[in-house]
C-alpha cells in the first residue's frame, strides 16, 4: 500500500518535471533536479502536514535545491573554466545535437534570465501560481515578486522579439 503522501507525490511528478524543465539548463539536468527533490522530500516527509498543499511544499524544496546547485556551479565555473567552455565537456556529439535541437528560443530566452527572475517566471507563468502563492514559496514580499516578474517579462519580450 502506498500512503497518501506517495500517491500525491506521484500525481505531482508531471508538474514537478515541468517546473524543473523551466528552471534547469536542459532536460537531463531537469530530471536530476526532480530526483533530488523527491529524495529530499522523502527524507523530510515528517515536515509535511497532511491537508496542506503538497505542491507548494515541493516547489519550495525544488527551488531551494536549484538555487544551491546554481550557486555551486557558478563557484566551480569561476574557479576553473568559463561556463561556456565547460558546458559540453563529456557530451558525445549526439547528445550535443539533441540539446541544440531541443533548445528552442523560449528555452534560450529563459536561461538568459537572472535566477531571481527566472524562478518568478517559472512559478507564475509556467506553473500558473497566483502572486501570493509564488511570493510565499520564494519567501519574498509581494512587491519584490511583482517587480521581478515585470523585469523578467520585459527581458523575455526583448529576447523573443530579437529572435523572431
Amino acid at each position, binding site marked *: 500500500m*502506498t500512503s497518501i503522501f*506517495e500517491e500525491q*507525490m*506521484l*500525481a*505531482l*511528478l*508531471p*508538474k514537478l*518535471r*515541468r517546473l524543473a*524543465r*523551466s528552471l534547469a539548463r536542459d532536460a537531463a539536468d531537469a*530530471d536530476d533536479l*526532480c*530526483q533530488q527533490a*523527491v*529524495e529530499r522530500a*522523502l527524507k523530510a516527509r515528517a515536515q509535511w502536514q497532511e491537508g496542506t498543499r503538497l505542491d507548494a511544499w515541493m516547489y519550495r524544496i525544488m527551488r531551494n535545491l536549484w538555487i544551491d546547485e546554481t550557486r555551486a556551479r557558478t563557484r566551480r565555473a569561476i574557479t576553473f573554466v568559463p561556463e561556456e567552455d565547460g558546458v559540453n565537456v563529456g557530451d558525445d556529439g549526439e547528445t550535443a545535437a539533441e540539446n541544440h535541437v531541443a533548445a*528552442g528560443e*523560449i*528555452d534560450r530566452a529563459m536561461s538568459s534570465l537572472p535566477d531571481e527572475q527566472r524562478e518568478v*517566471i517559472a512559478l*507564475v*507563468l*509556467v506553473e*500558473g501560481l*497566483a*502572486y501570493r502563492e509564488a511570493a510565499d514559496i520564494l519567501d519574498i514580499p509581494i512587491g519584490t515578486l*511583482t*517587480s521581478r*516578474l*515585470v523585469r523578467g*517579462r*520585459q527581458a*523575455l*519580450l526583448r529576447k*523573443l522579439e530579437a529572435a523572431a
Partner: protein
Amino acid sequence: MTIDEEMLVAYADDELDELTRARVERAVAESPALRVRLELHQNLRTRIAAHYGPVTDEPVPAHLAALLRPEKPEATVIPFPARAKSSRIPAWSGFAAVAASLAVGMVAGQMVLPGNKNVAEHRGILVARGPLADALDEQLASNQAGASIRIGISFRNTAGEFCRTYNTQALSGIACKGELGWQLPVTKSAQTRSAGKTYRQAGSADEWIMTAAAGMMRGEPLDALEEKTAREKHWQ
C-alpha cells in the same frame, strides 16, 4: 490615472480586483499603444505556458516513479493529477479522438497550412474559416452528436475574449474570438492519422491543449447554460 507596466502585467496575470481591472480596460480601450503592450504580455503568458505545458504529457521516467513506488519499480505510467476544474469539463470523448501521432506544437501564426479548408492566415495570425469557423460559432459541447469537428470546453481568457478548444481531423487547439474572428493562438497538428474508422486515443493531445487552456483561462470553463448564452450573443 496612468497605467504602468506593472498594472498591465497584473491584468494579464488576472491579479487585479474588479475596480482596477475596469480602469485598465478603459485605459486600454483609449490607447492603442497600451493595447499592443497588453497583448504582448498576454501572448507571452500563453506562449510560455504552451511551451512548457507538454512536459506534463511525457511519461514520467521509471526511476523517478520508482522512488515513490518501491514495490512496483517497473511502473512507468502514472495517472495525471485530477484537475480541480474537471467537474465542469464535459466528458468529450471526441477531443480524445485526435490522431495518434502528434507533431509540431506551435503558437501564434508560425505554421502555414496550405490548402486547409479550416484555417487561414490573416496578417500573420491564424484564423478559423469554413467548417471550423461554423462549428466554433454554432456547436455546443453538450450537443454535437455526429459532428466531425468536436468542441471541448469554452472559457474566457484573461483578455475577456471567449475561447473554445476544438479538434478537427487534422488539428486540435484553442480558438479565441477576437477582432479577426476566431483566432487560433494555440494549435497542434496531427501528422498521421490512424487507419480505419476509429481514431486511436491520443490523450496527450487533450492534456497538452488543456494545459495551454488552463494558462489562458480566467475563472472556470463555461457550463452548458453559459455556453448557450455566449452563442446567442455571438461570442462577443
